[in-house]
């Protein structure tokens, strides 16, 4: 079995890898090395902590008390989303990013830091620092004054399976774990049920231990008529708007076959 691995990339970012996790970490300022050391130290036990509670994390939330701090972040992130199928695994990537970021800036506080876990990103910003990311519609800039500290993207083309057909749903929220689960659920809601252009397979046939079990996940989406695209996007936008009204997310950008919707609309 391979151990967690770390390496400094030539541009001074840090790459951490263990099993299915790849983190790209950036820190600005004189505290960089100390922060990187802290990140490596925390990362050493990330996967083993999660694996210990994996079977419970793959079930919809019950009254389980998780002992692993990342598992607790995951449970906390999915807790507000009742009435729809979701397991804490929907927040795993964001929660890992949040946890490693928090550990990294506990003792030394740099002006800017981020942990990018395959596109689910946890941020730390102060003073005049800002973070730039690109979304399917526009460049996103998050400044220190704004409250977003998490960015996540979900879609059927990504590494995790999606119940919906969105190419990409990008969400800004206060934490990466919150953004992660929101992006997953909004992407699931971008759908045209039963459409012949959409191919689906049971998740369990693709990944035997998927938390989605026998649920059908999207494996291909053929070209769709513009009206169907608009309808699918508005279904997702409705879910996103609802999450915004309840204060869970700050912004969502939904994209499908060249069309995009944004929540809130006046941006």
């Amino acid at each position: 079995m391979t151990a967690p691995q770390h390496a400094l990339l030539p541009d001074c970012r840090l790459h951490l890898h263990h099993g299915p996790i790849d983190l790209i970490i950036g820190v600005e300022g004189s505290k960089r090395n100390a922060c990187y050391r802290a990140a490596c130290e925390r990362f050493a036990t990330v996967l083993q902590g999660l694996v210990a509670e994996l079977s419970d994390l793959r079930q919809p939330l019950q009254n389980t008390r998780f002992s692993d701090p990342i598992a607790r972040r995951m449970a906390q992130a999915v807790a507000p989303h009742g009435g729809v199928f979701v397991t804490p695994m929907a927040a795993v990537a964001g929660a890992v990013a949040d946890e490693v970021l928090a550990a990294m800036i506990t003792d030394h506080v740099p002006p800017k830091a981020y942990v990018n876990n395959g596109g689910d990103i946890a941020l730390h910003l102060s003073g005049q620092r800002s973070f730039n990311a690109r979304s399917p519609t526009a460049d996103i800039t998050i400044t220190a004054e704004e409250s977003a500290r998490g960015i996540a993207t979900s879609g059927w083309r990504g590494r995790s399976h999606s119940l919906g057909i969105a190419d990409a749903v990008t969400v800004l929220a206060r934490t990466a774990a919150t953004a992660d689960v929101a992006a997953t659920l909004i992407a699931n809601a971008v759908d045209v049920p039963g459409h012949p252009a959409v191919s689906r397979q049971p998740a369990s046939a693709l990944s035997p231990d998927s938390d989605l079990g026998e649920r059908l996940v999207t494996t291909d989406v053929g070209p769709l008529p513009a009206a169907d695209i608009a309808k699918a996007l508005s279904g997702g936008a409705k879910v996103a708007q609802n999450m915004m009204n309840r204060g869970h997310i700050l912004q969502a950008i939904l994209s499908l076959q060249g069309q995009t919707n944004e929540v809130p609309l006046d941006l």
Partner: protein
Amino acid sequence: MTRPAKIRCDACPVMCYIADGKTGACDRYANAGGQIIRCDPLTILDRRIAKGDEIKPFLAANWDGYTATGDDVTVSAIGAGTTYPDYKPAPFIVSREIAGVDCVTVVTEAIFSYCGVKVKIDTDRHLGAEAATVRAEGEAIGHVMTSEYGSQMLSLGGVDHLTGGSKAEGRTTCDALLQLCNKEAVELTVDGGSTVVVQAGQAPIVDGVREDRMRVGCGSATIGMFASQWKGLVDEVVVVDDHITGVVSEHQAGKVIDWPDTGIRIKGHRSTPGRYFKVAEPGQGWGGTNIEDPLTILGEWRADKGAKPGLRLLMVSTTGDHAAYFVLNDALEPDAAPMPQALQPSVDLIAQNCEPALCTVLFMGGAGGSLRSGVTENPVKLTNSVKAAQTKVTIGGAPVYRWPGGGITVMVDVTDVPDGAFGYVPTPALVAPLEFTVDRAAYEALGGHSTVIRTLSDVLETGGEYGADARIVGTAER
């Protein structure tokens, strides 16, 4: 319907159950017929692949006594498994003898965040302006570089497209690079220019039209090259070309060997004597024009400038694909006539000098500090050793060009690398097989991980951490 067997992977603590034919959550390990494997088995290259022998799978169990030591076999890093980020030795450090010297080959799959491809496309068509953005599936993945002789260059990938842009841009760039490096076809569009299908070692397809041959030169250049061979065999030669059509009697190359005037008149814009632009529109006819009947570009012949009955005219395209022979009749009109035997060789020579139009894909990447530390404990010593030509660098067994200057930045022709040798990680970045070969004493002097050196036969028999699957590329038969 029976369910495919699923097995548990022990490559990391997640211990995924993986269905047959699928990969685990990491996309790095897979279930192949009930066994967990790295996505590529370790590949051993037989130097005799150069003979063009077919690629054969090789199983250690069926080892037929063929000795794997010596110059015939190169241990490649394909499927070695990456140690990235390396604070442990590369997966295979193999001891074997080359020409009596105890050599050490350090093989690893290297993750290249800093990588891309340089593409040369043999075509005279204008693909797009210099620095124009090149896209795959709508995402910017590179740009047009310079025009070179008879070809155009693209630079694709690089760290800015892989990790500096959006997730989609990075993923699309990585996909396109991977396909190009693995010798698959990729459709590229140039902003404000053409759509071109690029595949290493294959003819380019520009805006749906396959480019078969690279011309010798433009019509004018062809005149320059062949004028002296035509002298005495024919009275006039027109080389039809979409770019510059050449006329031997008017051309400087004809003048210097005292070629007489013929009274010919070309319909087109004269550039300099004997060189004409725009004799027709671009197309699939003669010399890349839309001409089917070459006589349509000729005006009336002028007797006062030397036209006379019996004058012999050769018309030929720049690629030698089309050629026709005419003789002026009493009314000074060209009549088609059989090509004289003496003239045919010059037409054939033009065709022979046209090389097949190809796309060439060079992978270019840099081996960073972490990668080098998998090889030795003091990375810069490896760099210096490579520069001093003491350590040989290969990619998938193929020779590389190493750029002078700092670091180990190399280029390799992907057609020299075995099929399917390149992979990727979701960073996104490409994974390429990389080998360093050095003699054992020098390796130890470099601060190499000498305690983990294994013999070649041991690696072949027992494999690496994941599976003993090895295959010889090229023939392993006696």
